[in-house]
């Protein structure tokens, strides 16, 4: 029986340089997986949410059911969600992405719809008066004006996806969640803290990035103030 090594890993300290140096690859892989799962989920979510919101805006009757359905999805506990999707997707990254897409729908559909509804009727009539057809009206007038509200939804959905990805650890695809989960089981302080801090950093960075994108895409909101 050899003596235990005396380093911050063995002493189980919260902040541990050796942890960072010995597990750099593991941390980088986890961050990459985390970013990938978040990005793919949010993009898929957006691709589904925009048509749903437009549909709900066009046909008032559809709004109730669409909002109700996406809200109910949001209330399913994440552990249960992944278990229910398991027979469909098996143990794969697609399982986690599918779950996250369903969760992002509530936030995205509601916000995009609110944005579309906030477009003033006068604006729409003016566009129609200038000979805009329904498609052109949607693409060049309604959607751009709905951008601020939509982007607000996208930012919330992205930040919440960053944190929900961690639950994917139960099927082995949780990005940094894999490390947090394993660390909690063994009271591995450095691992839990490092992975959690990285999660927060990713969430803040993603939020700031989207904020910058929003400012670039909606120059008129600043011009008005300036």
């Amino acid at each position, binding site marked *: 029986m050899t003596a235990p090594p005396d380093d911050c890993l063995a002493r189980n300290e919260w902040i541990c340089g050796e942890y960072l140096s010995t597990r750099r690859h593991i941390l980088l892989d986890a961050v990459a997986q985390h970013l990938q799962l978040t990005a793919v989920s949010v993009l898929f979510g957006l691709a589904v949410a925009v048509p749903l919101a437009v549909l709900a805006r066009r046909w008032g009757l559809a709004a109730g059911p669409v909002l109700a359905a996406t809200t109910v999805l949001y209330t399913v506990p994440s552990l249960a969600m992944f278990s229910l999707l398991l027979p469909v997707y098996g143990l794969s990254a697609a399982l986690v992405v599918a779950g996250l897409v369903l969760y992002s729908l509530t936030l995205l559909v509601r916000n995009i719809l609110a944005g579309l509804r906030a477009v003033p009727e006068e604006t729409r009539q003016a566009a129609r008066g200038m000979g805009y057809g329904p498609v052109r009206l949607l693409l060049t007038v309604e959607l751009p004006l709905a951008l601020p509200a939509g982007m607000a939804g996208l930012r919330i959905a992205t930040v919440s996806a960053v944190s929900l990805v961690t639950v994917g650890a139960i*099927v082995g695809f949780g990005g940094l969640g894999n490390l947090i989960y394993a660390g909690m089981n063994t009271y591995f302080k450095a691992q839990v803290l490092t992975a959690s801090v990285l999660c927060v950093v990713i969430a803040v960075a993603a939020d700031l990035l989207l904020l910058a994108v929003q400012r670039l895409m909606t120059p008129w909101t600043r011009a008005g103030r300036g």
Partner: protein
Amino acid sequence: MLTGAFFLLAGCATGPSLENRGSVTAPPGDSRHLVVGSAGFTESDLLAQMYALLLKQAGYKTSMITVANRELYEPALESGQIDVVPEYAATFADWLNAKTHGADARPVGSPDLGTTMTALRALATPRGLTVLDPGRAVDQNAFAVSAAYAREHHLKTLGDLGRSGLPVRLAAGDECVQRPYCEPGLKKTYGIDVVAVDPKGVGTTQAKQAVRSGRDQMVLTTTTDATLDEFGLVLLDDDKHLQNADYIVPVVNRSRAGGEGVTKALGKLNDVLTTADLASLNRQVDSWRRLPEDVARTYLRDKGLLT
């Protein structure tokens, strides 16, 4: 509770469907790329890493996946998404039994290894799973007392404790009052005077601290627990064989990894890995915070199983 029900639902929905029942009776397969599953706790990680290293040495390509619990990885093992997992014979037999015959079915795991393996294989084979031979390592429930207490009352076995007539407060999980291997068994088989069960969890730090401080006299933990020394605890022998035969066994998907190659590669570990070895490996990961992969590789190299 609700989550549990969902897990069960998910579990029932998979498994070999009628179309691929053939996988159960087809000859054992020998896929070249194998996925080794780990249940996410240290010992499971270590065993999975050792399996992966041994398989790689035997010429297989391997990848690892960590899945939180049996409700999720067992169906994946049946369907061939996972090919190999480390399991505990009696626990897995009881789990499969509950899955096959309902939660109220009479337990089939027993203290006898032969009986347990027969029951386990009878349950696993129809699901397309092959249970390989058990080795020497056992991760059973075990009871520990403080070394000073054992010295004072001349205790080496649970039988000694029963004969001593000492009142015992037991630190264990709250399910201990019902499980036959725990409070009921201690009372009936050993005649131990369990005055109370302190629900501090199985082998948790708090439970061991309670025994060290003298608040409780005995703690329920496992035979591969490597932290007993740190708390000044010693295990009492299960001399009347109350505990089930939780020998470590590799379970494989028959149609993908049921062939001779896998059996031979993993069988190498059987004569080598002991319960004490496993406890020491657990300590290197849990207390020293080494990486399971490094610990597993060093161990196999030291034992000459890996070149």
